[in-house]
């Protein structure tokens, strides 16, 4: 596989994972708004915590992909 093809595959996989995370977060935001409006305040804390953890996970995946890509370009990864 050519070098830039490897990079494309790497970032495509990262995008697929992050898109799933963003979909989950959209659902969490809409559920939280509904809970807020209906006065069910207990669920807001866990929803916010889950959303932050998901954001950190997507950030982590991106950093990992960027790191792999950097090493790949330097020739560290065959």
């Amino acid at each position: 596989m050519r070098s830039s093809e490897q990079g494309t595959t790497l970032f495509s996989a990262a995008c697929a994972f992050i898109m799933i995370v963003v979909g989950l977060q959209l659902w969490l935001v809409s559920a939280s708004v509904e809970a807020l409006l209906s006065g069910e305040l207990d669920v807001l804390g866990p929803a916010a915590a889950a959303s932050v953890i998901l954001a950190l996970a997507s950030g982590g995946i991106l950093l990992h992909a960027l790191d792999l890509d950097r090493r790949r370009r330097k020739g560290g990864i065959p």
Partner: protein
Amino acid sequence: MRPEPRWSEDFPVEWERDHYITRRELAKFLVLGSMLLAGANVLIRILGFRRAKPDASRRRIGSLSQVPLGGSMLFRYPTEGDPCILLRGEDGSLKAYSQVCTHLSCSVIYKREAGKLFCPCHCGYFSPADGRPTAGPPTRPLPRIRIERDGEDLYATGREG
């Protein structure tokens, strides 16, 4: 040979490198969106803290003569930002609920001819007997306000649910 200028890394000539760069930028953009959504969730949590209800204490809300038999009266409890509705049955019984619809917070009104609490936003109905939803999108009952009568005076003494 002259080194490639830095900008050419982000504006490639070949398709393959172009795909690589657009995919990499998309991943960054998605992570930014993810961070913003997490921020929105945290903001909603903060708004939730601000909406937390203060302790409901006993407060006069009006007098019995203001509510006709089979009719209703609006009042605010426990704060000026919490609209409520008091119902007086044909038998003289008193029931009070929060006026905020449990679906999406529109104001509930009493439909005397139908004998039901009605939310005009999405045609939600609640039972005046116990505040339970009977039709439409709402799934949770209206919070109930405890009412006490002292002669002609009516007092709200607490909020349930």
